[in-house]
């Protein structure tokens, strides 16, 4: 495959055509914060955490393919500020109370807040009153913790092939739903595989019976599965 030469944080690197900026950065060991991205799933550029500067323009590195001579900056004061404000907006949108969350200490959102040094939230909190669906025998979806990254939607469609999850509503009314908005327990297409639980970055989709901080997840199962399937 054709190799393309780009400059990333001042360093000249070459990578196969068709790679995304994020892929190249990872290969080079350059950290870029991500949230909706998950290795093995398609990219949608929804969370805006992986933004980088390409010739003065802000783009998401997960969805932007490299081009010859591209100049990429992955970290700057401005990028850090934008990412932090973006993260604050996620925290202010719903009710992310870590101490009472089953995913406490195993949460990608929480990790990001620590990594980016988010010490407080400047924007006003929305404190919406959202529902929790525990109709499924094994799992729970708590809308209060959902950040609408869409990983559950993609893993269910792209890996499991069940297409149970979807997104309904728009703007701040957007919600992840099972099938056409019915209770999860009634969703006949659901195979109870639990992949959505494993890839959910927060405490939104969790297993039943877990107490605070007990819910450990394994999103890397997607890549493992994919590798196994490819080797078969």
């Amino acid at each position, binding site marked *: 495959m054709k190799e393309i030469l780009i400059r990333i944080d001042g360093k000249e690197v070459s990578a196969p055509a068709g790679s995304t900026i994020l892929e190249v950065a990872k290969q080079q060991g350059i950290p870029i914060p991500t949230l909706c991205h998950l290795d093995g799933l398609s990219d949608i*550029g929804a969370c*805006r955490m992986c933004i980088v500067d390409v010739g003065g323009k802000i783009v998401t590195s997960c969805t932007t393919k490299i081009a010859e001579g591209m100049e990429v900056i992955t970290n700057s004061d401005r990028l850090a500020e*934008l990412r932090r*404000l973006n993260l604050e*907006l996620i925290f202010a949108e719903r009710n992310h109370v870590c101490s009472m969350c089953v995913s406490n200490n195993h949460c990608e959102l929480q990790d990001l807040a620590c990594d980016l040094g988010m010490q407080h939230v400047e924007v006003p909190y*929305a404190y919406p009153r959202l529902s929790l669906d525990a109709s499924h025998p094994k799992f729970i979806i708590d809308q209060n913790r959902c950040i609408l990254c869409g990983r559950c939607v993609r893993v269910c469609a792209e890996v499991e092939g069940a297409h149970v999850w979807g997104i309904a509503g*728009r703007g*701040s009314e*957007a919600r992840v739903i099972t099938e056409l908005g019915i209770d999860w327990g009634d969703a006949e297409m659901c195979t109870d595989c639990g992949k959505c639980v494993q890839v959910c970055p927060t405490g939104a989709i969790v297993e039943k019976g877990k107490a605070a901080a007990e819910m450990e997840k394994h999103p890397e199962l997607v890549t493992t599965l994919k590798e196994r399937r490819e080797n078969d």
Partner: protein
Amino acid sequence: MTRRLDVLVCSGAACVSSHSAAVRDALSREIDENGLSNEIRIVETGCMGPCELGPVMLVYPDGAFYIHVKPEDAAEIVQEHFLKGRPVKRLLWEDPEARRIVEGKKQIPFFAKQVKVVLRNCGRIDPENIEEYIAADGYEALGKALTQMARNEVIQVITDSGLRGRGGAGFPTGKKWQFVASATGETKYVVCNGDEGDPGAFMDRSLLEGDPHTVIEGMTIAAYAVGASRGYIYIRAEYPLAIKRLQIALGQARKMGLLGENILETGFSFDIEVRMGAGAFVCGEETALIASIEGERGIARVRPPYPAVRGLFGMPTLINNVETWGNIRHIVLNGADWFRSIGTERSPGTKVFALSGKVKNTGLVEIPMGMTLRELIFDIGGGIPNGKKFKAVQTGGPSGGCIPEKYLDTPIDYESLKELGAIMGSGGMIVMDEDNCMVNIAKFFLEFTSDESCGQCVPCRTGLPRMLDILKRITSGNGTMDDLDLLQHLGEMIIETSFCGLGKTAPNPVLSTLKYFEDEYREHIEEKKCRAKVCTDLIAYRIDEDACRACGICAVNCPVGAITGELGKPPYIIDEEACIRCGTCLEVCPFGAVHVLSGELCNQDKREGSK
């Protein structure tokens, strides 16, 4: 007997809603009764422009322009004008400047300064009759393109004309066509973006209602030029009249061999389908529109690849706005030089605007690019009604910005408006006077955009509602000066990081009002004062003791019983706690005794009242 008069009755949506159909019926009845049906023809046309004055009608050949016509007027018009040749003076458009009766349509300043290219047929022909369109050079450009021009020649003339996308962003149309023409794909599509969603905008609707064939012809020419075989017109389901007329027009064009298989017997085939949108603002964004036509949820997609390369159903797709399509046939017919002779160097041609808000002549206007905002608002629009003072003009709808008085002499073109923090947009133009609170205006637009955000990306989905929270805090008197910095920060961040054009422009109304009307924000925060007396949490109604005659009308009309007093014994008193600030007392008081207060005085009184 020869036809003597053509009576053009406007049947644009605004006139239809002011009962133009009843006027038409009454006229037709009177004409029949007087035995004139062979001499006088009634034509229902598209929008004539001055919507505020509807129902309007125009009589040819004498050019008398009647306004506010009622069915009861039909007999007088027929008797006096049609039979005796004396136009009914009381119904003619009175020119507010000269205080004289204006008889000819040409002399009316509203029309005199306009240059009609796209809207040439709007208000002149019957949109449901293809023969009238053909009589007005209709489909001549298509014939010329198909029989005398090579595909690349068509693209070249569009490129040379300098036409830019009228949807708002101003991308060179010829370039877009070139991209699609050189893209490879089994099928190529041509799409008309008619998802007009800005509050106060009705340019696309009026063109589709008034002259649907212009759009169809433009699309067919493009299909030939780029090698497309299928077209879609995406239009809001809220535009039933436009959809109806489009369907009629499509049917007529097919019947005449101007659309469908083997067009004009040249071997070229192309057909168009109408798709209705469910009313999501974001579907005006081209990738979201494509998703919607495909039957997916209307959310924006990652660009690149651009639709020109991978668009509808994964195929190369040419998307242009309704008004852009409306320009095509004129350019093909008259040439690039002719088009460049109108407008400015970098923004050639005309632009259609929907003039609304606090301006005397609201309605649909088409002006050459480069005309100043002042000319548009004061000469064509007739200025601000009721002797009020101009405050700002909002261009580009919820994605645009508010431009203050000192920039009124700015020429209207893509670059100049952008420099001011506004945008050309698709053509909404809302005029505001001293009674508009700029903080409240910003809040209004942000309410709209945060409601219309698709919810896909974080900055737009959650950033806009947070900005709205802050604005609500300010208009309710609970804001702090730090809020202004936060608004600025958030706005800039949302513009920089949002996924699509909706988020990238939605903070503009807030940022532009912050820039030009920071004083008003400060007053809301520091003095708890709304100078326009709009923000209900910051105002109080008072009855002036000396002016009150204790008639009791205010008390009777108050919906919450907040006014007490004794008949004949002034003054009546408003209970501050119970008052909901609806303004009814102010409206009904025959003696002008009710005043609205805002700011320190009002707060001082409030404090005293609560003691």
